[in-house]
């Protein structure tokens, strides 16, 4: 008798994802849902999706969701967590959301050590609005607002938000992962699970940066986009644990 070893997670609704073929968002949605299932926290989890491609995350992840203005997901999540500390609150944000428009509240939330789990999806462009340059866009990368490639003296340098937040004393766990191959996806799931675990243990601010592919706005096929993440993006944003002070227990 055949045994089912992989099925749709219970915390994912039946709706078909609206994302483009090969998009990393849908993989990360599934990982978050699997982690919520495994930890058994679906009835007390509240998510805050961003403005951006993942704005409709509430159509897919079957937990309570509260929408926030662009970039303000962490500020809204702070309010939810402080009003109801027994809830597990996570935010799901893109790079334009967390690293450009929401930089102020993100840094201060990390510095205060808010008990939040933050999923930071970094694909280097503003995906929903048509692929404009984001702070995380790599030098030389062509976008609709940098048609000749990003120049450092005109457009500035790529912003490494995870490193910035690792400097803040309130953050306890920050890891950068990717979803380009089965191996990286399994590692990303472990990191997301740990970020939720840090919050359940009441330790402090946890953030998982996920390097994601955006085949449509990079104008590559899904397989080529995964290769670009591995060959180019990972050179600038190396994978691995950036900060982990959970073992100290304070």
């Amino acid at each position, binding site marked *: 008798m*055949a045994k089912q070893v*992989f099925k749709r997670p219970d915390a994912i609704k039946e709706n078909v994802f609206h994302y483009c073929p*090969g998009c990393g968002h849908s993989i990360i949605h599934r990982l978050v849902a699997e982690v919520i299932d495994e930890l058994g926290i679906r009835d007390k989890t509240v998510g805050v999706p961003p403005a951006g491609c993942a704005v409709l995350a509430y159509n897919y992840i079957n937990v309570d969701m509260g929408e926030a203005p662009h970039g303000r997901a962490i500020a809204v999540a702070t309010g939810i967590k402080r009003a109801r500390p027994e809830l597990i609150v996570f935010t799901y944000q893109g790079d334009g959301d967390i690293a450009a428009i929401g930089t102020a509240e993100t840094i201060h939330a990390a510095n205060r050590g808010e008990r939040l789990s933050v999923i930071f999806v970094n694909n280097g462009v503003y995906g929903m609005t048509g692929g404009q340059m984001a702070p995380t866009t790599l030098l030389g990368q062509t976008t609709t607002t940098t048609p000749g490639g990003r120049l450092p003296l005109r457009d500035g340098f790529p912003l490494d938000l995870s490193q910035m937040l690792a400097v803040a004393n309130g953050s306890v766990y920050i890891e950068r992962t990717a979803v380009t191959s*089965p191996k990286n996806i399994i590692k990303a799931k472990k990191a997301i699970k740990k970020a939720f675990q840090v919050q359940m243990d009441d330790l402090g601010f946890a953030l998982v940066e996920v390097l994601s592919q955006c085949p449509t706005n990079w104008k590559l*096929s*899904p*397989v080529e986009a995964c290769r670009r993440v591995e060959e180019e993006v990972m050179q600038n944003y190396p994978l691995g644990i950036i900060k982990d002070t959970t073992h100290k227990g304070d």
Partner: protein
Amino acid sequence: MKKKGFIRINSELCKGCGLCITACLKGSIRISNKLNMKGYHPAEYIENEKSKNRKCTGCALCAITCPDIAIEVFRD
């Protein structure tokens, strides 16, 4: 008998991105010539779940990679 597996691909959920094809170590998945309701060419499983000499081991790497959760994996 060696343990074998098989997969089922929901062709209406699949968008034909092809990531499962690069993930499959046995080369048991290909892009179909048919179109689904959305107008994509979905991935299709080459083997048959009833055949005895199939290569699929049920490792689930294709399902882990699939962005649209279109693949279900079974093991004998």
